[in-house]
Structure formats: C-alpha cells, structure tokens
C-alpha cells in the first residue's frame, strides 16, 4: 500500500495544480492525505478548499488541525487510510464475485469471516508512507512539531505486523528545486535526530510540482525493486 501525506499551511502558488498531481497519484495507486495546520487561522477559505480537493482527488482524507494535534492526526489518518484501502479492495472483490459491493449483503456468518480477513490484511500488508512537508516561511515555527509527529508515526507503524516504511520530503528546495528528499525509505528512526537540517525558507509553495516529484520517486523505487527481483529470478535460472 502506498500513501502520500502532505503537511502544509497554505495554498500552492507555483506550477501545476496540486489537484491534478493528486489525481496522478491516485492513478499510480498512491492515496493522498492532507493535513492543514491552522494556528492563527491563516489558511483562508481558498486554502481550506484546496486541501479538501487535493485529498478528494487523491482518494484520501483531509483535516485542518492546530499544531498541538498534529502528531495525533498524522498517526490516525495513516491508520484510517490503511483500513479504507483494504475495505475498497475487498469491496471490489465482492463486486466482482457477487455483483454486490456491500458487506451487509452477506449472510451474518460470512460477514464475520470477511471482516476477519480484512483485519488481518490491515495488520499484515506492507505499507509505504511518503511525507511531504511544506517548508515555506510561515511553517518555520511548526517544524519541530512536524518532526515530532513523524517520530510518533514511525512508532505506531513499527507496531504493525507488516513491513512499514516512511520517506520524508520537504518543499521547496533551496535552488529552484521543487522538492528535496530528507530521508530515504526507512523502517526506523534510530539515530535520526534532526530530519530537517537547516532549511532555507522560501516564499513559494510549489505543492503540485513537489507532489509530482514524490510520485516519480514512488514509481522509480517500485520499478527498480521489480527489476532487481526479476534479475534475481533470472539469475537463479541461469545457475
């Protein structure tokens, strides 16, 4: 399962629309969640609706929260999305087999079995979460809380049975880059003290282009993984 989680406090203002980028993510099987941090209520109506739209296009959830609720929200959204993804997959299977997509349509005892399988999958499926952090100037005072919430997320992901990895990006980069990778795929944060070293805060918010970069990263990562698996298989055949 693949997820992208965006933490931002404002509207995108450069490049391609983040809503289009979110739809791209969805078509690549990546669910997009968005958290809007609203401490001084500085997001505005437009920003709030953009956050909502990004999540809708990306098949995920959106929340507007205060900094102190960030850790709790990030952790909760990730978990909820896992459940939702499993539910959707199971519903699609039911639709294909029974021509009916609601679990309620099953007889009670069957329903129990299906739900059990769903719980199992929720716990054991492998999960990748890419966090995309808005590091524009106004986010500066909030970055400590963002970092804390990433540590907290890792903690609850480690408690899962299945393999869980996270990667962390921030945007914009210092030299006109749309986004920068801070932390490559990892299953633990041991020895990582500061995820964001010294950031050059900039005024622009290229949310859309940054999201496209993260999608690219997902795509390349998966393609190369598949390729190395294939090579492994071929190698075995030759030997």
């Amino acid at each position, binding site marked *: 399962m693949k997820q992208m989680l965006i933490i931002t406090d404002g509207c995108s203002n450069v490049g391609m629309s983040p809503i289009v980028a979110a739809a*791209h993510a969805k078509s690549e099987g990546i669910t997009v969640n968005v958290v809007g941090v609203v401490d001084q209520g500085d997001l505005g109506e437009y920003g709030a609706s953009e956050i909502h739209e990004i999540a*809708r296009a990306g098949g995920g959830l959106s929340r507007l929260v205060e900094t102190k609720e960030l850790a709790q929200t990030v952790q909760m959204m990730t978990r909820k999305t896992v459940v939702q993804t499993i539910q959707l997959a199971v519903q*699609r299977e039911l639709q294909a087999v029974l021509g009916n997509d609601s679990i309620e349509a099953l007889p009670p005892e069957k329903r129990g079995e299906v739900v059990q399988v769903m719980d199992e999958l929720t716990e054991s499926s492998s999960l990748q979460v890419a966090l995309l952090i808005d590091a524009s100037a106004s986010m500066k005072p909030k970055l400590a809380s963002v970092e804390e919430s990433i540590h907290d997320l890792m903690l609850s992901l480690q408690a899962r049975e299945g393999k869980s990895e996270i990667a962390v990006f921030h945007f914009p980069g210092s030299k*006109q880059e749309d986004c920068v990778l801070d932390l490559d795929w990892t299953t633990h944060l041991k020895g990582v003290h500061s995820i964001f070293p010294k950031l050059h805060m900039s005024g622009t918010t290229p949310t859309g282009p940054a999201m496209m970069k993260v999608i*690219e990263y997902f795509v390349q990562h998966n393609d190369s993984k598949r390729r190395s698996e294939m090579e492994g298989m071929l190698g075995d055949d030759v030997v």
Partner: protein
Amino acid sequence: MLGEGANGKVYLVSKGWQSYALKMGVSSIDLQSEINALKALSGDDSSRGSYLMDVDDWITPQGKEVPFYTMRYVKGLNMANYIAQHGADWFPLLGLNLLRSLGELHRERWIFGDLKLENIIVGEYGEVDLIDFGGATPFGKGVKQFTEIYDRGYWNEGSRSADAAYDLFSFGVLCLQVFAPRKLAQLSKELLPQTRSAEQLIELAREIPQLAPYRKWLEQAFDGGFSHGKEAASAWRAITHQRKPTVKNTATPRWLKVMIAISIVSLCITASLYALDYTGLLR
C-alpha cells in the same frame, strides 16, 4: 434522453436511487453484437465491474419488438469540455487513464474501434470511462463502426481490421482533436483522399505546445509502432513522470537567446558584405 448513437437512442433511467443508461436499438442484430461486446468486456477479472445490467425486448402497443439493454450510467463531461473547464494540466493524466482502459480491452483481445471525444466521459477527478461500445470489435475482425477522421484507413495508414494499433492511431488523432479541432477539420477538408497521411497529422502535432513532450510517442502511434495498449500506456507514463511539470524551467536561458541573436545578426552582416563584394567585383 442522453444521446443518440449509430445503433439507437440512449435514455437515462433509474431504479431506486441508482441511475442507469438504457439503449434502445433499431436493429436487434446490431444491438446484439454490441451486447456481445459488452458481455465479453464485463469478464470476471475486469476492473470495470459489470458493465451490462439487463437485456430484453420491449413490445410497443403497436406490437413491434424493440430490443434494449441497460448499462452503468457514468456521470461526467466529455473530454474536450473537461479540458476546457479544468485546464490542460489534466491532459497527461486523462491520456494515461484512457490508454490504460484501452489496454484492458486489448488484454481481452478486443478493440474499442470507435474511439472519439464524444465516446469518452471524464469523471470529477480525471477518471476516464468509455461509452458506446458500438464499434467494439474482436482482434482480427473488421471494424464496422468508426468515425472517419479518427480512422486509420481514412488517413491511408493501414487497414480497418481490428488490432491494438487501430485504437492507438485513433488516440493520436484524439490528442489533436483536443487541442486543435479546427485545424484538424480544415486539414481533412483540404487534402485529397490520396494525399492524406500520418505525415500531416505529425506536422500538426508539432504545432501544438501541449503535445511537445509526447511528439515521439505520437509519431510512434501514427506509425503503428505500438502493438498493445499496455505498451503504449507505459511509454506515455514514462514521459509523464519524467518531464518537468512546469514548462518555464525548460525554456532557453536568456543569455543563450541573446547570443543566438548576435550570431544571426553577424552572419547576416558578413553574408551581405560578401554579396556586395561579389556584385562589386562583377562590375
């Protein structure tokens, strides 16, 4: 009424809360071949779920039998309107989603046949659905229902027998239709039947800035270079996820433009000096 196809009329009907599209045919044979196509496409492992709901005949008060079937109703805009309303930013994604749908059909060894703007419905966030399966044809059979300007045969680029490349050619024309409908119409009007060729289409594609990243891809599609929708989709995807999303970054730097301008000017000066010198010598 939702629309009128070549084989009949389509109405919006509802059962409880759910809406469906109902198509009434004129000839039961034509309609039945469409139904067969839909049946083949609503196979077990198709991600589209079941397309076809019900098939029956309706006997009019005059005693005439009218065949009809009901299918899933898809709400949305046609592709051209969608891009006009939401912006060309969406185009790469719509293209990819459409190619993936075609790839699914090709996997079942069917082609869509009558691919055109009017037969594509785009949902709220760029989800693409194909409608009107009147042109759907199994691999190797002749395509019966098509639209001239999208047709490979019309452009003298191959037969009308169904293969994946037929759909992909139509897809190429569709890209032109999205961004330059007038020029495309004019092109097909001006050219004589025997002079129509993919060359003209490729040339038109070159004039459209939004298609610039996909130029190579289009050339290949017009050339019959893709043998499967899936292959075409992954080539399209590779382009979409590699290029810079903003055109601004890739523009020529200003200093380079200045240098080019200077060199052109100096070239002109030298050339004219030479010319003067030459004519002077003649006299």
